[in-house]
């Protein structure tokens, strides 16, 4: 289901308009608050929901998996570098998640591609893309596994 805006919380800053990949978040001409101009075209990517500094945008879940009474809300905390989700089920069950969205301060780890040396002939002839990790490759030397590439299993996740 598409996004909608809590009009009393929106202050018309324009971050949702800026970030919407479908260009369907716009500013209402009369009230100067954001609104979804074309709900049919909204693919619920949550970009605007996460970008809104006032948490004024919400998404109604589809009735089959998120019936009335549920809530899925998100808070993207740029300063702390985390994103938090709170999922409330209709029966009162609540799930909370907190995950990193960056590991380095914003804007300080942008690769300087201009300084990267030009690819050698061997690299140009290779099937790998720039910076593509070796273990993604499936074309030669048998099947690469996560262990064979030095990754360790920790709590169900390979690092």
């Amino acid at each position, binding site marked *: 289901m598409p996004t909608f805006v809590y009009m009393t919380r929106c202050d018309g800053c324009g971050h949702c*308009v800026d970030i919407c990949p479908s260009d369907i978040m716009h500013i209402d001409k009369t009230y100067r608050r954001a609104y979804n101009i074309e709900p049919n075209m909204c693919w619920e990517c949550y970009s605007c929901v996460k970008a809104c500094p*006032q948490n004024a945008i919400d998404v109604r879940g589809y009735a089959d998996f998120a019936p009335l009474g549920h809530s899925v809300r998100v808070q993207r905390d740029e300063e702390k570098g985390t994103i938090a989700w709170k999922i409330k089920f209709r029966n009162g069950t609540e799930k909370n998640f907190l995950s990193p969205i960056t590991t380095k301060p914003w804007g300080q780890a942008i690769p300087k591609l201009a300084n990267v040396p030009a690819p050698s002939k061997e690299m140009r002839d290779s099937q790998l893309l720039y910076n593509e990790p070796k273990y993604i490759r499936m074309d030669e030397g048998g099947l690469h596994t996560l262990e064979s590439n030095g990754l360790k299993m920790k709590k169900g996740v390979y690092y």
Partner: protein
Amino acid sequence: MFTHNPFAELSASVPIAVMQIYVAVMAFLVVAGTLFDVWHKRSAQYFFQNMRDAKTRAKRTVGGGEKIGIAVQTAVVDVAASGEFCNQKRRMSHLLGMYGFIIYVVTTALMVFCYPAAATPAPAAVVTLWYIGALMICLGGYWFWFFIRVDVAAEGQPPIRLMRADLFIISLVLSATFGLIWAWLQGAGVAVWTNVFLALYLIATTVLFAGIPWSKFSHMFFKPAAAFEKRVSKANGSAQNLPTLTRDDPEQQKRHSMELLQNAPMNMGLGIKREAPRHY
């Protein structure tokens, strides 16, 4: 110019009682207009219903002392410093307009009720503050109107396009602008134009106070209440259903997904907010 009291000179041609009744009527219109707005839009009903809902979802009870602390925080951060704005330019223009309006209204009331006649001259500071207040309104208001307003800055609408939503800001800046021009013309002794601008000043001021049910004038009463409720809902854990987990919490720092941020600074700086939202 900044020490010339226009109301004292006006009292020579308009009875003092008329001036005072006009100001009293405007004050009455603020109260009546706000109450009508509350009743008509049912905002109070929605507000208290929201408060009750938040109380039902609360995870802990917020005590009286804590509520006083939250009220002080709301008054200092959200009201006095316009802390809810995320756009700093908009925040500054709001602060200019807000403090300008307060100074303008208080000094107008002082000059009309305490020093209305030339025989009882107002202290120079009061008169100067009236001018400063009006200039602050003009500065903050025109800055907002021509440059910061989102439909001008972001949607490319022409700045002179008027909508009903503009009633408050337009009548406010016009009241201050016409007031300043009227005071200046009166001091310069240009009789005809003085009367023209006095009429324009009165029209703009009357629209400002009489148009409350149709304008956003009463946001100055609603917004602090909403900001207080928002802080209370955060304190009682309901937080408008928003997540309450943060990285500050030592328990959260132990989660395996947070391992990646173990050595990262607690302040990562600004991400998408490093640039103004003007990429569309």
